[in-house]
């Protein structure tokens, strides 16, 4: 089904001029491997919180292998709760831990993703690439064995995180009252992951460790603060600048945009917000010329931030159950208004992109510095030009405000989401600081 991702991506995500200092062999590039997971997740229409979980366990597999071979990297067990690392035995001496790490990402994805079988093709292509690069067959075999071992152990660890119990929980029933979220046009998709807060977090203690300020109180009154928030969304959308539209589209990251035409509906797909930040991590790792081990470290730490950020955000979403701008504006301001972006199928507060982008930026800034400039071409796939940012935090700030331009969030959900993400990110950095040093630019 999928063509060789490595080939396709070389064309698509070719090095942005001057972004690469020194190069690793292509087969040790994590970016295409992570992207191949994104492709499968797009196929399966994996929702944003679930996507963060899949990315994370996959890159943690790689981290596990690398950390057992690099004494500067502390074991995951020092960070993660209830995690017991699988011991890679000495018999596996002939393996190449870097190759095993790359392969483990694919293998973990293959075992966990609904259409993980699609990654078989990538694995086969990867092994071919290795042979072409004159890696000894025995090394390949041993590395694959290690990858399988670690992937198996990681999947077992993942199994206990509460994900499989989600289907046994009560699904979201719209809360009665004007203030609350209700499925939105055009497909009125049922609320996504209303019980996500029950998922075992990675670093934080619980989903409600970073409870943010409550949202502005709902009101229909045109003099109320809430009405003003809605009016702001409405006004911005009515006179949005091309630049704002660019920003909104760049950070849309909606995994499933339903386009209806009569009886027909087509789903257009994009990479989820978490997937976007995983790709940014790959871009930054390359630009920084990180060693393979450090690239794995960076991916792993960003992924942890993403998982926990989604958990705290989703906890808040189903605590406040707040109405989306589209529903409010249609009801109280303009019957015919439509947001620039399609409203995602879950409650509004806080803005997920604001929380997760801010948290990810904190982690990236810790490892690569406060003024790490890079060019993000992740969205070229969707015909949206690349954007250059002076720092991760500025990128995150843009991701946050893009939701206002896109007409899918109120300002307080964005700003409080940023605060929530910042607090979480800083806390995570403190936790990481104990064991892990910044990599530097």
């Amino acid at each position, binding site marked *: *089904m*999928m*063509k060789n*991702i490595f080939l*396709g*991506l070389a*064309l*698509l995500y070719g090095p942005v001029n001057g972004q690469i200092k020194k190069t690793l062999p292509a087969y040790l590039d994590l970016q295409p491997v992570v992207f191949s997971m994104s*492709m499968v997740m*797009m*196929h*399966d*229409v994996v929702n944003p919180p679930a996507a963060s979980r899949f990315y994370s366990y996959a890159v943690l597999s790689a981290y596990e292998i690398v950390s057992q071979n690099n004494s500067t990297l502390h074991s995951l067990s020092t960070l993660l709760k209830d995690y017991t690392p699988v011991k890679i035995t000495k018999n596996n001496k002939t393996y190449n831990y870097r190759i095993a790490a790359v392969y483990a990402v694919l293998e973990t994805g293959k075992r966990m993703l*609904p*259409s*993980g*079988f699609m990654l078989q093709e990538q694995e086969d292509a990867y092994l071919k690439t290795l042979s072409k690069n004159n890696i000894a067959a025995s090394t390949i075999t041993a590395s694959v064995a290690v990858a399988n071992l670690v992937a198996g152990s990681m999947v077992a660890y993942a199994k206990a995180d509460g*994900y*499989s*119990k*989600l*289907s*046994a929980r*009560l*699904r*979201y*029933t*719209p809360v*009665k009252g004007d203030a609350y979220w*209700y*499925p939105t*046009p*055009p497909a*009125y*998709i*049922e609320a996504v992951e209303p019980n996500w807060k029950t998922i075992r977090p990675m670093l934080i203690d619980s989903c409600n460790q970073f409870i943010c300020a409550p949202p502005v109180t709902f009101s229909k009154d045109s003099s109320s603060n809430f009405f003003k928030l809605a009016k702001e969304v409405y006004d911005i959308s009515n006179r949005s600048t091309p630049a704002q539209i660019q920003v909104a589209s760049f950070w849309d990251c909606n995994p*499933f945009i*339903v386009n*209806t*035409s*009569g*009886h*027909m*509906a*087509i*789903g*257009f*797909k994009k990479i989820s917000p978490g997937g976007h930040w995983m790709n940014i991590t790959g871009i930054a790792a390359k630009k920084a010329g990180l060693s393979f081990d450090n690239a794995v470290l960076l991916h792993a730490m960003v992924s942890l931030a993403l998982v926990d950020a989604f958990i705290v955000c989703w906890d808040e979403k189903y605590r406040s159950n707040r109405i989306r701008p589209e529903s409010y504006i*249609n009801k109280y301001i303009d*019957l*015919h208004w*439509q947001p620039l972006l399609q409203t995602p199928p879950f409650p509004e507060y806080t803005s997920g992109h604001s929380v997760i982008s801010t948290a990810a930026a904190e982690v990236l800034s810790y490892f690569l510095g406060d003024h790490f400039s890079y060019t993000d071409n992740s969205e070229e*796939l*969707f*015909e949206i030009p690349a954007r250059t940012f002076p720092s991760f935090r500025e990128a995150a700030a843009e991701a946050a405000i893009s939701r206002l331009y896109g007409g899918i969030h109120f300002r307080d959900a964005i700003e409080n989401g940023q605060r929530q993400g910042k607090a979480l990110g800083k806390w995570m950095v403190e936790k990481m600081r104990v064991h892990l040093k910044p990599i530097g630019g």
Partner: protein
Amino acid sequence: MRFNITTATLLLLFAIPAIAQQKLFQLLPPGQTNIHFSNDISESESLNVLSYEYFYNGGGVAVGDINNDGLPDLFFTGNMKANKLYLNLGNMQFKDITKDACSELPGRAGGWKTGVTMADVNGDGLMDIYVCYSGKVGEELRRNQLFINKGNLKFTEEAKAYGLDDKSYSTQAAFFDYDNDGDLDMFLLNHSTKKIDNMEFAKFRNDIDELAGDKLYENNGNHFTDVSVRAGIRQNPMTFGLGIAIADVNKDGWQDIYVSNDYNEPDYLYINNHDGTFTDQSQQRLRHLSQFSMGVDIADFNNDGLPDIMSLDMLPEDNRRQKLLQLQENYESFALMQSQDLYKQYMRNMLQLNNGDGTFSEIGRLAGVSATDWSWCPLFADFDNDGFKDLFISNGYLRDYTNKDFLRYWGDYKVKKAVDREPALLMDLVKAMPSTTLPNYIFKNNHDLTFSNKQIDWGLSTPGISSGAVYADLDNDGDLDLVINNINEVASVYKNQSREQDAGNYVAVKLSGRAGNTNAIGAKVYLYTNGNMQYQEVNPNRGYLSCISTVLNFGLGTQKNIDSLKIIWPDGSTQLTANLTVNQKIIIQQKDVPQPVKTAPENAVKPLFTKSSALLDYKSEVSNQNDFKRQLLMLFMYSKTGPVIARADVNKDGLEDMFISGDNTQAAKIYIQQRDGHFVAQEGFSGGNENECTVAAAVFFDANGDGFPDLYIAKGGYSLWEANTHSLQDELYLNDGKGNFSLSEEALPDVSASSKSCVRPCDIDGDGDLDLFVGGRIIPGKYPLAPKSYLLINDGKGKFTVADMPFSNIGMVTDAQWIDINKDGRKDLVLCGELMPIKIFINTTSGFADKTGEYFSEPTNGFWFTLNIADVDGDGNEDLIAGNLGLNSPFKISEKEPAEMYYADFDGNGSIDPFFNCYVQGKSYPFVSRDELNEQIYPMRRKFSSYKNYADAGMKEIFTPDELAKASVLTASEERTVCFLNRGGKFVKSLLPLQAQFSVVTKILAKDFTHDGKIDLLLLGNHADNRLKIGSIDANYGCLLEGDGKGNFEYIPQPVSGFSVKGDVKSAEAITVGKEQYIVIGIAGSELIFYKQN
């Protein structure tokens, strides 16, 4: 030997053609008919279904005699191709005279032609032709055309002069006399071309869209004026009119209009107000509608003289296509539709049976005609001349637009193209939609409200993509031939060989009306033969994009005599003709009637029951719990149990009083009957607070032996409650002897392990006090595990203890009765429930013994909702009457093809995974869709990678043998409501009339309602809160069955019984008020309904 071989060879030689000849219809080759018309559609990057969503809706056919030679001629519209007019030369041969008749008749180049109508628009005795236009083209290309017949096979286009050059997006026009002024007016059916972005139709409902809204034109001396607004025609931009049928639906002498709308806009049933205006009464008369409605027909298919309505939708018949194409259930959008008054609409064909009292019972599933795939044109007509109208349905769509793999995975194509740096093409998308050709459907009327599929037997098995269609006796041989307009195929002409096969006699009737309405459109014809009646209305506007003949064909079967023919002309005058000869065409002139006589009103029967004003002030409110949020794979919701009614004379004043349960907004109350016949709520009583529990059953009985009725309230419900918590603990209230009740805190043991269904008091141990059976209905969150049922033993002072019994965990009990079956003086327990048999436990001195097998010769597993007992055959033994699912559900269940419910915690995540399976076309399939399966068991996302891969899966494909081995199975093999007659110690199943199977039966009253000394049955029910794929089951309006005292029952029509009960009946009691007998009925979300027995 030699002789034998020859005979065998001969037999072989003749056998094949003989079989071919047996088919009712023979498809005639174009070479024979000279009809080569084909509605060819060419798709391109700029012109395709994505640019114009009605690109595959096809063309129409009109049939009419343009030269008055007695032979019906044909006109076809081509969307992109030239229209064709074919002159009938006789012997099924036709001549293309399009260009000779009028140079404009082929239609405007670049225009998009849709429906066609033949009518004598100017009333000059010559058939004119009206062609509709639509499409994403400029408005001048869209103006409809009127071809006036000038005689001698010549036509001129005069739409503008008549005021009918309308530029709306038109589907079809119907000519009829809406104001009874003697000329033909026109209803123009239009459709929107706007992209539907959302469902918030409240936004647009009151807008007027000049180009999309339907229009009514009044004829004033051959000039037509748009009177839509004045007439009350809906014209909002969400109108997607695809079907129109005209008929006098309520038989008041004025023409009514049915408009079927695609998408979320509901269909309209415009009832004529006799003053030039119409009122849409679809919601008053119909309980639910087809959602993506296409064509429509109105005709009397059960020969009761009342016009019935058939509207089409797009539900496939087979499991595979259902799994591939059926939309995902979305309760929020359904709720949104309800909140915006878009009514209950479901994706399937609807057959609305006219009950004659202003209501219709939708019985499409019972009749077997609800799923015919993407369907366009329904036509009721007696194709086999047996005296009952059969049903033809055309279907087909060029591409499987709603294929779910396409929806979900086509997006990959775009990403892939981007990765490969290739442009994405619209035509790639169009071509990516699979194309499936299917045969049209034809059903034979079984004379009992049901139909049988005759696609193969009658020779309609050729697959294709069909659109508009007509029937007409093209060769005047007495049977109805079929003409079908196809996409990308030559039009089909099917010759009916009924007459050749000597299948039945016929008579054809051609009415000749007065000038202005020369074809007597709107006239009604009744044909009486040997106690039977057939009814037809002259109304060629029916089906889809098409217009049938104005000649009425009546099949007579073996009848050789017609008793009489009654015509009610459009002006209301009646004409009776007797002594007609069969097998001929009769032409009847209206002017032959000397004096117009107004129809005498039909003898009004005094109904057996009359709805009375409410004797007490009560309305139940329903809270919108969605049980499927808790357990996605259940079939029905269990939260709604009220209103619950219990009755007793609580204050011993000789008048019956009532307990009525409350809801979130009001407390349960005891209503005391007053001397004036009204009921007044008693002050001070509080019990069963519905904000903390759900009252599921209640009974008055003397718990403490003081001679006064006490009150037991059983708790039930589903969505909000947990087992073993206070909300499921039942309550006993003691009567102080004055009718005041107070809670007896210590009276009951812990009975909170299940949600309950019924309470049945009985002195089971002969100690003089009343013990109780309390039925367990469900364990909230754990459907379909068997909940606990209780036997509560009374200590004589009103304190109860639980006795363990063999039926403690018998199943999901819905009802029970105590009868002394073996006449040993001890009452035995009969109980029933969901997905379980009716069980009989004999009460012996050493305990209860399951003796079910001794009383039933076969298992009776069903959905049983209620159980009543009465001696219906007067033999001194109590018989059982048990309410079931009925035959009007999507599930076809029988002993040979039972339904099965597999359940286990398959994925070990702590939730019960119930999988309902039932037979579809001979094989048992799970009811669950791929989306639902993936939601219920996450690992299934890995098992079935696409909808296609899942489409044919059975339980064995979904689960491994090991997994299946740990599953438990419940079954149902009987879905009918039945009467079990106690005959010599065995319960013998006795079938009830088909009307008893129209809906779920939840309450049964057995009593002599007809004053003949024999027990009659009143069946009440309906069940609206079901999975959306099941939809609201609501065709029961109070089904009264008259007993003959021998165990047989006959249905009493609604106008005679007087019942018109709408909604889900949760309780019903026969009660005496003063000296009058009443039936009080509790309906979810409604006022209490009182019917007074006359």
